[in-house]
């Protein structure tokens, strides 16, 4: 018998009850207090549910579009309403459904798959989720008042600026911008979680394949979203206070927005696709009952896609008049990215080929994914060819292509995963008959809807039109597409009916009902709040297939941390490469703070849409206060410095510096932030390339080099005390820390003040020209960073001074130092660029 068959034959005995302390510390609060829960099992389910709600809301908008276009002369919507509906459809599907639900899936699933009790920053997950829910509802609600964004999901200026003076696009910029920030929060959570909170023995080469995909995706979000957030800020500033970054009449350039947007927008496709491919790579082996073929090759493909996909952004801009050779670079990269995609597809086919397929509903969705995604990938290679793209650009061919890639590449795997993981979340099995009906209706409905759009595009039908003349020959195909959309909708309704009915009424699932090999199926069903009774030690990629008795051993507390002796929520931190036990991480208990901070953040962004800036500022300060309370209650002191975690292993309960999860989180944040700053420098240089002279003709005012030098000297001096923070902390000299922070603050405030004086003194009016606006931004951007650093420094100063008995402050001190030095580096670079570059150029 193979180990897979042994696993199928083995039925673990019912799990014994968890020790009372362990069970009670992880138990969810009841009633209203349940909203204070920060554990991934609770937040993850809400998160996925919210994502599905937005799928339905975005889908309703899609049906409105297809209803309206079913025949020429559609009367369901006016032109203005149609613009809002198609814009909000794209925006909802991309920003409120696709990206968040993939993050949600990882928040829910990854701790179980990694063998952790929770991810390292549960409050960040909870805050990110609440921000997403409130921000998403805020952005979507605009359609109920017909003030939704109306310039396309990519918000191209000048349509979105000069020609859209209403508040419509502010809903996009502030509502979606705010959700992007919550996406960044999840990046920190997920990356540090994968790196630091794995089961013992789960070395990098044994990392579950889904985690590899999620790791790559999270890092991609970290690099792709910040430039878009920067673009959002620039556009909102242009709309609110008239700084002309994208206004061609005053030296700006709309193409700059397209660069910033598509630098995010193309990787976005892979940000959506890769975690879905990770789900496929996880589910597929279960339904062919054999390991994935080519694990290392698939990891290679995921990592390579992460990099290559950043070389694709201009392929959305082939018709903007960029130089020919530049287009060829991007065309080449667009074709190169087909190689890792092909590697994955061949590995999946090989896995099916060499296995024994079991045609259950999740596997049907996987097969549907393979069929549709390959078709979408092939049309992707077609539009990667510049000459073809020039013909197909802005036509329905592109609409067909993107839906084949996104629905095929993401929604089908997601549906597969929803059915597959239903027993793990609810303890009940899905209904096979309803599931099959749902699949076939969805699969056929999808193809009937979107395949005709290829032909419509080739016959010349442009995108984003709310009507078309009857004599163009597009009528039948549009009608077929609309009928297909109705069928697709019925399929999705059947799918959700199955999901909801089975969640409550489905037959009880037996343990590991699909006979999967991955670790998440080692828990009891539904997965308990504690996750694992004891944190296992694993060997191989499929721990249950490697050792069918593993679930029983975990249940009986044979591994690490089988109890919670101090009544704390805890998980194990392990080594990045080899996953040896390194530290007990004390995790936060349920708290209102993430929810309250998210409410305040929502008000802060929400009222800004209506230009109530003082109210916005007040709400922002309230949110900040909640976050500071949250930070005060971080770094819990454990009663013991080190503890026996079982199997004769003793690990510390606290660590600082590069070994700690907090250091990793801050470094990650700085790296992500650097791409936003990089985007700003790019914007400055881009405007230089499109200007005849630099500074542009007619701008006589100059920056005072002497004043800039004094500013730089003060800012640089402030980084010296910051550099010593870690060292002083190592010796627990809290008074020295307070002194260093005070010196840093004083020098920083003086330097910041001088940088403002430099701008005032220059006489550069930021409303006059894109150049002057960018000079201001080059200073203001690092200045805001220094301001954030100043808040962190003041907070750390107080915490170190008070030295609360229950909490430490070392992470706060070191992370403040890191952030401050990064902000100083930005400011020095900015000053060098704005003062010296005009002479160099």
């Amino acid at each position, binding site marked *: 018998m193979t180990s897979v068959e042994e696993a199928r034959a083995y039925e673990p005995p019912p799990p014994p009850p968890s020790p009372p302390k362990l069970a009670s510390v992880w138990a969810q609060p009841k009633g209203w207090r349940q909203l204070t829960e920060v554990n991934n099992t609770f937040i993850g389910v809400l998160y996925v549910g919210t994502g599905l709600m937005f799928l339905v809301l975005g889908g309703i908008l899609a049906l409105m579009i297809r209803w309206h276009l079913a025949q020429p002369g559609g009367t369901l919507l006016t032109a203005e309403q149609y613009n809002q509906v198609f814009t909000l459809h794209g925006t909802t599907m991309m920003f409120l459904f696709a990206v968040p639900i993939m993050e949600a899936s990882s928040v829910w699933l990854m701790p179980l798959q990694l063998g952790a009790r929770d991810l390292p920053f549960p409050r960040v997950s909870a805050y990110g989720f609440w921000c997403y829910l409130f921000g998403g509802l805020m952005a979507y609600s605009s359609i109920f008042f017909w003030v939704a964004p109306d310039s396309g999901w990519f918000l191209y200026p000048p349509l979105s600026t000069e020609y859209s003076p209403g508040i419509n696009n502010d809903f996009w910029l502030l509502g979606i911008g705010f959700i992007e920030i919550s996406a960044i929060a999840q990046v920190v959570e997920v990356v540090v979680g994968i790196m630091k909170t794995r089961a013992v*023995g789960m*070395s*990098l*080469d*044994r990392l579950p394949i889904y985690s590899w995909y999620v790791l790559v995706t999270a890092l991609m979000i970290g690099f792709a979203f910040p430039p878009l957030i920067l673009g959002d800020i620039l556009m909102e500033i242009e709309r609110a206070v008239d700084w002309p970054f994208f206004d061609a009449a005053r030296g700006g350039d709309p193409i700059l927005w397209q660069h910033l947007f598509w630098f995010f927008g193309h990787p976005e496709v892979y940000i959506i696709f890769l975690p879905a491919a990770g789900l496929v790579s996880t589910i597929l082996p279960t339904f062919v009952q054999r390991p994935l073929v080519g694990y*290392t*090759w698939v*990891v*290679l493909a995921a*990592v*390579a896609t*992460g*990099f*290559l996909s*950043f*070389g694709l952004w*201009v392929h959305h801009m082939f018709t903007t008049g*960029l*130089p*020919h*050779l*530049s287009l*060829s*670079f*991007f*065309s*080449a*990269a667009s*074709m*190169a990215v087909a*190689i*890792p995609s092909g590697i994955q597809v061949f590995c999946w086919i090989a896995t099916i080929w060499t296995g024994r397929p079991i045609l259950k509903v999740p596997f049907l969705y996987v097969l549907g994914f393979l069929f549709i995604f390959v078709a979408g990938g092939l049309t992707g290679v077609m539009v990667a060819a510049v000459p073809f793209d020039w013909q197909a650009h802005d036509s329905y061919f592109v609409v067909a292509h993107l839906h084949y890639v996104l629905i095929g590449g993401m929604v089908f795997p997601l549906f597969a995963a929803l059915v597959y993981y239903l027993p793990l979340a609810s303890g009940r099995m899905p209904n096979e008959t309803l599931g099959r009906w749902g699949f076939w209706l969805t699969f056929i409905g999808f193809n009937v809807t979107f395949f005709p759009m290829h032909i419509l595009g080739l016959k010349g039908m442009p995108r984003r039109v709310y009507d078309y003349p009857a004599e163009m020959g597009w009528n039948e195909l549009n009608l077929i597409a609309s009928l297909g959309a109705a069928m697709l909708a019925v399929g999705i309704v059947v799918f959700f009916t199955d999901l909801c009915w089975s969640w409550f009424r489905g037959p009880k699932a037996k343990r590991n009902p699909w006979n999967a090999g991955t670790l998440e199926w080692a828990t009891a069903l539904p997965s308990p709040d504690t996750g694992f009774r004891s944190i296992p030690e694993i*060997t*191989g*990629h499929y721990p249950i297939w*490697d050792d069918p008795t593993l679930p029983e051993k975990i249940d009986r507390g044979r591994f690490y941390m089988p109890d919670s002796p101090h009544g704390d929520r805890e998980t194990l931190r392990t080594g*990045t*490469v*080899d996953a040896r036990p390194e530290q007990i991480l004390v995790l936060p208990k349920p708290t209102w703070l993430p929810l309250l901070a998210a409410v305040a953040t929502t008000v802060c962004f929400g009222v800004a849409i209506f230009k109530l800036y003082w109210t916005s500022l007040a709400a922002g300060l309230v949110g900040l206060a909640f976050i500071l309370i949250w930070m005060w209650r971080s770094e819990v002191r454990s009663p013991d410095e080190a503890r026996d975690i079982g199997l004769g292993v003793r690990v510390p309960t606290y660590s600082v510096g590069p070994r700690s999860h907090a250091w990793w989180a801050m470094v990650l944040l700085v790296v992500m932030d650097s791409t936003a700053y990089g985007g700003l420098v790019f914007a400055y240089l881009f405007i230089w*390339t*499109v200007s005849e002279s630099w500074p542009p003709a007619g701008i006589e005012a100059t920056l005072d080099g002497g004043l800039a030098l004094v500013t730089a000297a003060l800012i640089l001096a402030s980084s010296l005390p910051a550099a010593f923070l870690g060292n002083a902390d190592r010796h627990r000299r809290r008074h020295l820390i307070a002194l260093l922070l005070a010196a840093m603050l004083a020098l920083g405030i003086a330097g910041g003040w001088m940088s403002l004086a430099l701008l005032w003194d220059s006489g550069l009016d930021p409303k006059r020209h894109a150049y002057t606006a960018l000079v201001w931004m080059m200073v203001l951007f690092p200045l805001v960073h220094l301001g954030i650093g100043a808040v962190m420094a003041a907070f750390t100063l107080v915490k170190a001074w008070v030295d609360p008995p229950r909490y430490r402050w070392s992470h706060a001190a070191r992370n403040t130092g890191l952030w401050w030095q990064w902000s100083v580096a930005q400011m020095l670079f900015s000053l060098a660029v704005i003062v010296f570059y005009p002479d160099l150029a």
Partner: protein
Amino acid sequence: MANPLAADNPISIVLAPIVWSVYFLFVYVLNSVACTKGFVGLTLFGFGIVPATVVIATLVTLAIMVWLAGLAWSRFAPVRDTDDHVHSADPELARLARRRFMALAGLLQAGLHILATLYVGLPALLVPEC
């Protein structure tokens, strides 16, 4: 600072893509600036400055990639038959499998990005700059 070339450093897996990213950004910025600032007419060794520089950059990048591939191969060859040890409970054997994984991943990345570099560099010989 850990050595990024060390066999057990995960960064070694992504060195080739990082090199490719720098190369890609360089050739793109070069051509954009050459076209917008009008120095596209300059020559280098008798060739247009852009194609000549792109060819040089491509060759340098390829040389680095080949070196990275060689480094990965030298690490992969001694442990190429240790794939099954990924399931081993023996830490020493498991370490061999890990070393194999890291080396193979580095090797495959280098190979793929050699192709990607050729893809990006070749149009410089065929397509006009602006």
